[in-house]
């Protein structure tokens, strides 16, 4: 617990919260621009379309955001060359857990704030009815797991490489992969496709009327496997990060 507290102490004045909320601000700006002036048929299926839009936004931006978060948490140790010293004061595993937990707390708050802001925006736009709490909670949980897998992957890379350019470029590449996976499929077994796989809403575009029809997805076997894969990635990246970090010399 003390190690976790110290992690939060370390990121004081490092603008980690500010940079995360700035990213949320960009998402809000994008959402505001893409969802403004909804038509009647858009208001009818507004809550479903919101879940879909958030998947696209997050799928594209979260790999990069998670790489920024992990880099900010890890690079302080590289800069101060403090790994060896810290390991003499507590176990390596507890230090790794503290960093992972610190990022998880930030991620939880970030996603909860995002959900709250966009739900309020949905009410402001006048979406019909209320958001279905079952779907919204499930969507939150699945997105959290997908983002956590990305965060743990990035934390592993950021702690391994002293040169933070490498993990950040991998994060950017992940965003690019996620974007193009969206073009070709609605699920993926790659860690960067987790947000897409876990989307609860699908979309059909009617060419004749130019109306978009949203629907709750029925997962096929392959899609279910892709969702399960998210949790496997979480475990793999956690175990790999812990092992790598505890065995690291300096």
């Amino acid at each position, binding site marked *: 617990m003390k190690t976790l507290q110290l992690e939060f102490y370390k990121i004081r004045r*490092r*603008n980690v919260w500010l*940079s995360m909320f*700035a*990213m949320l*601000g*960009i998402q809000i*700006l*994008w959402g505001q*621009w893409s969802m403004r002036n909804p038509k009647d048929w858009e208001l009818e299926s507004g809550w479903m379309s919101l879940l879909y839009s958030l998947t696209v936004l997050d799928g*594209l*931006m979260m790999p*990069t*955001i998670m*790489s*920024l978060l992990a*880099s*900010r948490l890890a*690079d302080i140790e590289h*800069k101060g060359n403090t790994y060896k010293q810290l390991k003499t004061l507590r176990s390596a595993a507890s230090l790794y857990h503290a960093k992972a937990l610190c990022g998880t707390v930030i991620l939880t708050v970030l996603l909860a704030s995002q959900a709250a802001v966009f739900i309020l925006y949905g009410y402001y736009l006048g979406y019909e009815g209320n958001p279905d709490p079952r779907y919204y909670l499930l969507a939150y949980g699945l997105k959290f797991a997908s983002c956590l897998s990305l965060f743990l992957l990035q934390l592993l890379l950021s702690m391994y490489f002293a*040169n*933070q*350019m*490498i993990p*950040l*470029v991998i994060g*950017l*590449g992940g*965003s*690019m*992969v996620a*974007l*193009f996976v969206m*073009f*070709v499929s609605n699920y993926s077994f790659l860690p960067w496709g987790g947000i897409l796989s876990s989307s609860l809403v699908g979309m059909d575009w009617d060419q004749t009327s130019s109306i978009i029809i949203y629907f709750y997805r029925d997962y096929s076997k392959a899609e279910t496997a892709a969702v399960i894969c998210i949790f496997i990635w979480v475990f793999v990246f956690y175990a790999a990060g812990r092992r790598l970090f505890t065995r690291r010399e300096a």
Partner: protein
Amino acid sequence: MTALQKTITAERIKLRRSPVWLAFFGLPLISAFFGTNNYRMNQGILQNEWFSLWTQHSLFLCFFFMPALIGTYCSYLWRLEHSRTNWNAFLTAPVPHFALYFGKLFQGVLMTILGNAWVFSLYYVCGKFCGLNSPLPKAVLSWFLCGMLGGIVVCGVQLTISMWIRSFAIPIGIAVAGGIGGMFMTNNGWGLYYPYSLYAIGMRANNPNMEIPLGQFLSGCVVYILICCIISVWKLKRGEG
């Protein structure tokens, strides 16, 4: 050897054996692969040959990935200065302050130009791979030159930000946000006044008629580059890094 030549050489030595060029090589490759794939899958709708292929290659690269990539490179250029007490060594080097800045700007601009040339080389190769037999449109040269100029603007802005903020990741976050904001600004018609949009405008990304107000674009680029140079050199002269 002039002071500027000395700083350019020094920057080159700092970048020796760095893997930074791999990012400029790899990310456009992913973009070109998927852009071409998307073009091939939708060739029924996308019938404007080279122009249609360009829409698929340029859209996300220009608004999202290239600003972030340039931002990463600029952060990397200042990374060494931000570690330990290197600012002291940097600012007491026996060369004028403007040469210190222009040494970095030169490397940034060089990489931006090479990166852009790589994007266009991939575009040509992918076009041939897709079986486009018509000659490459002459307008491509203008897209390249204007894109290059827009890229230099992003490079100038990011160099200034990376110099100011002593963090590697935050300027990259700003570049990502700036690039996405660029899409918003361009769609609202304010792109010519926003530095991160200038690259995409120059490259004609998401621009169906492929025309731009050239005078306004050029003056916008020149103004932003000048502002960034002045601010950066002024900041270096104040010796605060």
